């Protein structure tokens, strides 16, 4: 896979140490391609935010990375493992290559500093030699980029609306032209109208600037519309990964199916909204086998005993040549015993 920009391999994140440790993220493999929007969906507690914090090494204690690697592929350079960077290397890497827009639109800006200070200090930290006038000009440009008038530079965060604050955060994320922008439920605190505006703007900016996005949300309907590819997380694992259109049309994992049936479609025939019975698993006492099997309507006997491996489903491989898409359908993976994995060697 030559066009990968961020590759997560076997990432494990625990909260706490030793036997009491809670495994919040388990054996996650994920690849972000250049220029794509990768959606990461799942219920609360499925580990999606922990994954984002883990791969940027921002886990608050007692979170620890228990294993795996996060490979970043710079333009035309050798891949580097983010998890093995020294602290100064990590500081240089942060924001310049991978920026993050956080969940809380309201609290991401420091209330006592002006917008201009918070936009320019990141530029200064990564390029101390630039002039302050140049930094200010860049900050003005960034605000224009996200549709905020430049006279807001002198404002304090509390003088901006929630939507404006989140725009500022997006502008800030783009300050150093990173290759990857991770968005952790960036629009959760906003109303749907503002949510839409911001997402549309984000898509526009991505087309113009060509960065890749990891978009984390519990709102699958949003992802179906805005992302190229979707990964579904459950109980700390990725259970299905597919092009968003494929996933929407034909979810393989019963959990994805359940998620998709939890919201109504705008067009098309009416259908029963089912939702998913039960509640997300307790990470401290995960069920044996597939962690979804106690809630799964189609559980087999095998599901309670063995953990299904994420892989290309055999039946999709057979029909792969018919499908049309920009990526080969072998990209589609699922972890479910209903869809046995195709083994390349066999």
């Amino acid at each position, binding site marked *: 896979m030559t066009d990968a920009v961020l590759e997560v391999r076997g990432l494990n994140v625990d909260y706490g140490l030793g036997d009491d440790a809670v495994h919040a993220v388990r054996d996650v493999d994920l690849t972000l391609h250049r220029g794509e929007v990768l959606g990461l969906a799942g219920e609360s507690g499925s580990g999606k935010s922990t994954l984002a914090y883990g791969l*940027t090494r*921002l886990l*608050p*204690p007692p979170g620890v990375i228990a294993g795996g690697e996060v490979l970043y592929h710079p333009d035309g350079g050798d891949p580097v493992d983010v998890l093995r960077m020294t602290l100064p290397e*990590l*500081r*240089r*890497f*942060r*924001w*310049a290559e991978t*920026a*993050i827009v*956080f*969940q*809380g639109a309201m*609290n*991401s*800006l*420091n*209330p*006592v*500093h*002006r917008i201009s200070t918070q936009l320019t*200090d*990141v530029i200064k*930290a*990564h390029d101390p030699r630039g002039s302050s006038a140049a930094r200010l000009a860049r900050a003005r440009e960034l605000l224009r980029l996200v549709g905020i008038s430049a006279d807001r530079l002198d404002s*304090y965060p*509390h*003088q901006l609306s929630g939507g404006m604050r989140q725009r500022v*955060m997006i502008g*800030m994320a783009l300050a150093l032209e990173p290759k990857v922008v991770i968005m952790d439920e960036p629009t959760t605190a906003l109303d749907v109208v503002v949510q839409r505006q911001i997402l549309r703007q984000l898509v526009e900016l991505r087309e113009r600037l060509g960065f890749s996005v990891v978009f984390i949300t519990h709102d699958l309907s949003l992802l179906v519309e805005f992302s190229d590819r979707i990964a579904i997380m459950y109980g700390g694992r990725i259970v299905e990964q597919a092009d968003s259109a494929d996933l929407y049309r034909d979810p393989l994992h019963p959990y994805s199916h359940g998620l998709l049936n939890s919201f109504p479609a705008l067009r098309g025939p009416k259908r029963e909204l089912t939702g998913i019975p039960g509640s997300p698993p307790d990470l401290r006492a995960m069920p044996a086998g597939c962690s979804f099997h106690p809630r799964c309507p189609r559980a087999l006997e095998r599901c309670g005993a063995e953990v299904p491996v994420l892989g290309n489903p055999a039946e999709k491989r057979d029909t792969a040549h018919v499908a049309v898409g920009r990526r080969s359908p072998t990209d589609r993976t699922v972890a479910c015993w209903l869809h046995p994995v195709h083994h390349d060697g066999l």
Partner: protein
Amino acid sequence: MSYLLKRIAFYLFTAWAAITINFFIPRVIPGDPVQALITRSRGQMTSDAVQSLYVLFGLDKDASLVEQYFTYLGQLLRGDLGLSFTYFPSPVSQVLGDGLPWTLGLVGITTVLGFLIGTALGTGIGWRRGSWADALIPVTTFVSSIPYFWLGLIAIALLTGPDSFFPASGAYDNGLVPNPDLEFVGSVLRHGLLPAFTILISSMAGWILSMRNMMVTVASEDYVTVAHAKGLSDRRVMVSYAARNALLPNVSGFALSLGFIVGGTLLVEIVFSYPGLGLQLFQAVGAKDYPLMQGIFLIITLSVLLANFLADVAYLALDPRTRREG
């Protein structure tokens, strides 16, 4: 700006109320100061002299209360606080002028130092939460609960003596004349060291504790995580994102403690016989020296008001959320 004007008006009103109360208190509490003075001169006074004393102290029985009140206000405006009984015939303003520099010098400097050092230490300890530095916290909790005058008594008992470097009382050696020369300054520093140290220790501990706790709270705020994610240096995140915000609640506490510089450390001055306002107040109470008491109370009230005003201004400067848009 209008907010600040409103605050100023409020403080002026409070100051007037304090001055008025200050006028009435000596007139309602029992005891006759002139009588006390006459007793001290063992009756060698003519009745004319007694009457002139009453007038002098502003306790003229012939004048009405309203008249006395306005005379009092007029005198106050001229900086005339009457005559002290204990330091008779020195005017109160002169007595206060003698004591105030010592109090400001000792307690003022230690209060500011205690705040600065305590805040800096608390910032560091809070930022490195969970490291060995946290072991200091129980110690500071313990120390901050010790009254400083008790600490002073212990210090005197343990560290002073005939051959000790630390003198047990006074602000400078008895034989010296206040001059800005090396010997006098050295003597002042030597005398100030022990009382300063006791105030510093006990006030610093409180600042360490509150700053550390605020740092721990602020460090889990989203904007601190964002600052880390931005790749800012650890120092920059600590100072500009965490400490800057954690400081806010401490600012008002600091301003209040500034207000208590004058009156709050009375006991330290008594313990060390330090010739500041606290000791003067103590003596004035013992001698029923009403004019001096009035003067000291006035200074205490005004300094508390001034400190509160400073807290308002500091908050306005440090926290943009308190500024109201015009």
